[in-house]
């Protein structure tokens, strides 16, 4: 038990070192930028300047402060990213299941998956927007497209990684195909499914922000590009950068928490031989 506790605390130590290291590097760079640039906040402001800007009560655009603008636009962007993520998750899982059920479907569908993955979002987003004519729907669609690929491929890999003996056991017990899926294949693929979710959760958010930049209709990406064009305070940009980084990390962390909740084996570490 003691060694276990030690391990956990050393995990925390690693995180701490990481965060502190990042802050130090950022600040070193910020001082350097400050020394050579005329408008350093456009390149790299100090972290405290960003924090101060969060608590700044001076309205900067149509009577709202920077942080109010960021949070309201974050609402619409993240909500749509969330919808897209859920749809992508469901479609990705279903597709993996179909590909597992039929090798023919896998052969037909898989190249298309690769293809979709290879089109850059910057190219795909305007096409989706042109089809849907709605920035909100486009966010959902793009987030879903980016989510379903990692989920689908990882889940399929999970189906394929099942111990052969487990399938032998099912066969020897004369299990039906449905039973094989419900009792063995799907539970075995769950950790892989979550690996896919952990990869795609922050991607869905980034994609949703990127789609925003296409149309001046609110949303994080829209504010971000306005801020970059100096239509409003540059600190809106930096706040958005920080917010999306934090939300991205949190989304991955959340997937880990959910995985632990639903799979008991993740709650126990391997024990030493007795």
């Amino acid at each position, binding site marked *: 038990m003691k060694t276990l506790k030690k391990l956990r605390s050393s995990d925390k130590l690693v995180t701490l070192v990481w965060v502190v290291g990042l802050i130090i590097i950022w600040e070193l760079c910020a001082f350097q930028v400050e020394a050579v640039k005329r408008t350093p906040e456009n390149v790299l402001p100090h972290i405290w300047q960003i924090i101060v800007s969060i608590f700044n009560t001076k309205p900067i655009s149509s009577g709202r402060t920077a942080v109010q603008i960021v949070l309201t636009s974050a609402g619409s962007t993240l909500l749509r990213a969330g919808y897209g993520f859920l749809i992508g998750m469901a479609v990705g899982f279903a597709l993996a299941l179909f590909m597992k059920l039929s090798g023919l479907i896998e052969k037909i569908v898989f190249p298309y998956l690769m293809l979709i993955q290879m089109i850059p979002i910057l190219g795909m987003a305007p096409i989706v927007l042109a089809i849907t004519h709605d920035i909100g729907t486009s966010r959902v669609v793009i987030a879903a497209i980016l989510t379903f690929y990692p989920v689908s491929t990882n889940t399929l890999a999970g189906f394929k990684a099942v*111990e052969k*003996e*487990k399938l*032998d*056991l*099912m*066969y*020897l*017990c*004369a*299990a039906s195909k449905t*039973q094989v899926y419900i*009792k*063995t294949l799907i*539970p075995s693929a*769950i950790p892989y499914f979550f690996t896919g979710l952990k990869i795609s959760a922050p991607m869905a958010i980034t994609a949703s922000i990127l789609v925003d930049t296409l149309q001046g209709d609110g949303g994080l990406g829209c504010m971000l590009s306005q801020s970059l064009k100096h239509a409003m305070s540059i600190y809106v940009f930096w706040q958005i950068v920080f917010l999306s980084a934090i939300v991205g990390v949190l989304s991955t962390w959340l997937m880990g928490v959910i995985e632990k909740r639903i*799979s*008991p*084996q993740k709650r*126990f*570490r*391997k*024990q030493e*031989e*007795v």
Partner: protein
Amino acid sequence: MNEAEVAIKIDQVGMVYHDREKEVTALTGVSLNIEKGEFISLLGPSGCGKTTLLRIVADLIKPTSGRVLIDGETTEKARKQKKYGMVFQSPVLYEWRTVQKNVELPLELMKLHKDERMARADKMLELVGLSDFAQHYPQQLSGGMQQRVGIARALALRPEILLMDEPFSALDEFTREKLNEDLLYIWQRTNKTVLFVTHNIAESVFLSDRVCVLSPHPGRLSAVVDIDLPRPRTREMRDSPEFTALVAKVRGSFEGV
């Protein structure tokens, strides 16, 4: 031998694999009658086809020649009647299920009622000495304990035939000997016909009524050695001159190794 007592009839079984253009003969002309309640070992070095033979008996693969009959019926019929319990080389436990739920798994597939499942699992866990660990998860157990869960699971279906594919080969010598003794205890309490694959000569002699020696290239049955040591077998017997003599006899019956 009286035909009615034959549990497993292996009749001129052969197995040929096609590896690219080469033909590989894994097994040729294996015939053997196994009586009900007998403990039989399939002993041989790697590549002698002992696991292939076990998998043919289990209906996991079809032989390319000959046939296997279980109580006079095909292996497929025997499988569908749940006559097999199988223990693998690795424990093959379901990590997301507790020990108890692992043992219940085959019973769930049979759609048995919950109470019946629990009662049977309890009984099996008691038999393998793991009652106190019913609510543990597999990764919390040692290798030997995990393999015991595998045995309990195989017995839960109340099969007539217990098939064991080198079940103790990944364990250390001490654990292996302990599990050998425990397996004999379980076997005497349950009266199953056991087909036990191993590459350990002492293990096969200690456990079996008969040791079937298989030789490689091509895989064939080269000798059947009767083990007439009295039962119940005890740890002390391992050091007896009779035991040593039988081990030497079995070792002497290998061809071309």
